[in-house]
């Protein structure tokens, strides 16, 4: 019989041995006018250049997709990369952090030296959530218990979990709306974000209801874009262009006891983070109280709240109070998704939030602050609209990737002492 408790063995693993050395992306648009192949090449090229590497110095590629993108092998060809290792993994949210761990493993195993991880998607102009004709395909297999009942999009799947959280803990819509409020504030200082207008909780609650408890503004934006990060050993990282974002700990697609039976096994208001947290914090050698900036997957306002709660930033059931407290806003104690995240910057299945935290760790968020003679932005820490979004002190960041309530991934990064 499975129990809710499990023992986390080991601890240090590869802490401090690997780093993210390059980050890059395309524009975020609704109508890229490009293939996912072209988008992937664009983002990967930017990430490699950001690291100060040449394409020929990349020898590994990892990507993830759901039949909606282009293989790493094809993208490698477009960039003049001859991979010694590539793999295209099935999946969306929660893939990013897991693939960082797999990249470390591939390098550790001697299969390659430097891995680029990318996600390329035309999430608006090609493969939309639940749409673009896929609704017409015959309903078969386990989908018989879902699509048959008009229950086939992530919002519809997750909604009973969100509703039950409101029921059990008294979580209020206006509290959870504050996730959108915070992320819109952050996006207003991110020139590349799709939705840069600051909104209020009243705006969120006044937007049309999609499926209870999710208003339109509780949901992320279907977006066309690609994003990429470069992972290599700490020894190599030290000779590259930027101060390395050192990988302290990673957990990949940690599951609840039955990832396929979230609703049967319960408690349905508890998500995979509850099981991932002990392994994450022990592996990274830090705890929630040490984290300066979080990147919590915001497919919906509620997913951010549930993850922050179950990774231990507040007590169980107090996520509503936590996200409404101001802590997660720029200027607060521990800002979340300083880029605006999936709700406001654009939806990219998680890589973008790692990109943002790498820039935060470098103290080089790409806001509108002036670039100094040394090529770095001179951050004002004035978080008024259109201003700075660099957090003043960033030594430790954490990313929380959400696949479903039943599985998730996480990544803790830090600066070298």
């Amino acid at each position, binding site marked *: 019989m499975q129990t809710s408790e499990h023992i986390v063995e080991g601890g240090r693993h590869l802490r401090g041995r690997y780093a993210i050395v390059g980050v890059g992306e395309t524009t975020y648009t609704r109508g890229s006018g490009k293939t996912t192949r072209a988008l992937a090449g664009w983002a990967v090229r930017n990430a490699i250049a950001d690291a100060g590497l040449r394409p020929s110095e990349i020898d590994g590629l990892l990507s993830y997709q759901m039949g909606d993108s282009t293989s790493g092998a094809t993208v490698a060809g477009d960039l003049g990369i001859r991979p010694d290792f590539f793999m295209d993994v099935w999946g969306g949210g929660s893939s990013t952090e897991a693939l960082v761990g797999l990249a470390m493993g591939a390098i550790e195993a001697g299969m390659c030296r430097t891995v680029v991880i990318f996600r390329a998607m035309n999430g608006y102009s090609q493969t939309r959530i639940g749409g673009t004709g896929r609704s017409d395909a015959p*309903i078969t297999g386990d989908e018989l218990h879902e699509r048959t009942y008009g229950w086939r999009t992530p919002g519809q799947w997750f909604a009973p979990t969100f509703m039950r959280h409101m029921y059990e803990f008294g979580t209020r819509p206006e509290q959870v709306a504050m996730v959108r409020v915070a992320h819109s504030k952050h996006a207003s200082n991110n020139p590349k974000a799709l939705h840069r207008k600051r909104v209020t909780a009243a705006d969120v609650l006044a937007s049309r209801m999609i499926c209870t408890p999710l208003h339109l503004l509780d949901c992320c934006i279907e977006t066309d874009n690609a994003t990429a990060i470069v992972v290599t050993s700490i020894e190599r990282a030290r000779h590259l262009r930027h101060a390395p974002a050192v990988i302290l700990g990673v957990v990949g697609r940690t599951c609840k006891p039955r990832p396929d039976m979230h609703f049967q096994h319960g408690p349905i208001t508890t998500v995979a983070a509850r099981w991932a947290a002990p392994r994450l914090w022990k592996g990274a050698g830090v705890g929630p109280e040490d984290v300066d900036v979080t990147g919590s997957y915001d497919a919906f306002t509620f997913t951010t709240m549930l993850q922050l709660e179950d990774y231990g930033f507040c007590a169980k059931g107090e996520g509503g109070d936590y996200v409404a407290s101001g802590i997660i806003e720029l200027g607060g104690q521990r800002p979340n998704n300083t880029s605006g995240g999936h709700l406001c910057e654009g939806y990219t299945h998680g890589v973008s939030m790692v990109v943002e935290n790498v820039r935060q760790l470098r103290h080089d968020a790409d806001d509108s602050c002036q670039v100094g003679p040394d090529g770095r932005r001179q951050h004002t820490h004035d978080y008024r609209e259109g201003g700075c979004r660099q957090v003043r002190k960033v030594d430790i960041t954490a990313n929380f990737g959400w696949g479903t309530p039943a599985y998730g991934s996480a990544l803790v990064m830090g600066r070298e002492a």
Partner: protein
Amino acid sequence: MELTGQHLGMTLSISALDHDNAAYFGYCAKGELRLQRCRPCGLIRAPPGPACPWCAASDFEWVSLNGRGKVYSYTEVRHAVQPAFLPYLPYVALLVELDEQRAQPSDHEALRLIGNLALADGTLASPDVVRQVGIGSRVRVVFARVGEGLAIPLWTLDESASQPDSVWRYPELSTPP
């Protein structure tokens, strides 16, 4: 033999290889809600599948359930993504907790099924009925025939049960502080 059906204009198809779903929906066509009970450990599982989630055994038997339970959670859909549901807005996807095997084998576990709120004749519930249902509502199973030897389970307010004085519904009129 492959089973096929039509529901709200959507095509349902059960492969001849998919014995678990074929049996489950086949029993529905006979007006029976049946689930698999593991022979070695005696626990019933839902939704159907080839192995026991608790003891991993593959030996099972189909047992009848009384088809009664309460709403554990739900979502009221106002924006249809599937075109088939456009004429039925708002519609409700219920998470129904069956009376049998509640809080077994541990406190948080139960047989919980997703299905639409319907009227007693199996048609999707009208907006006035949708407004009556929330967490705690007592419901019973009804079946909608969708093809030869094929029906799907749906849920309707249980007229024979005593309904709670109030049920929890999404707080529509909530305003920001």
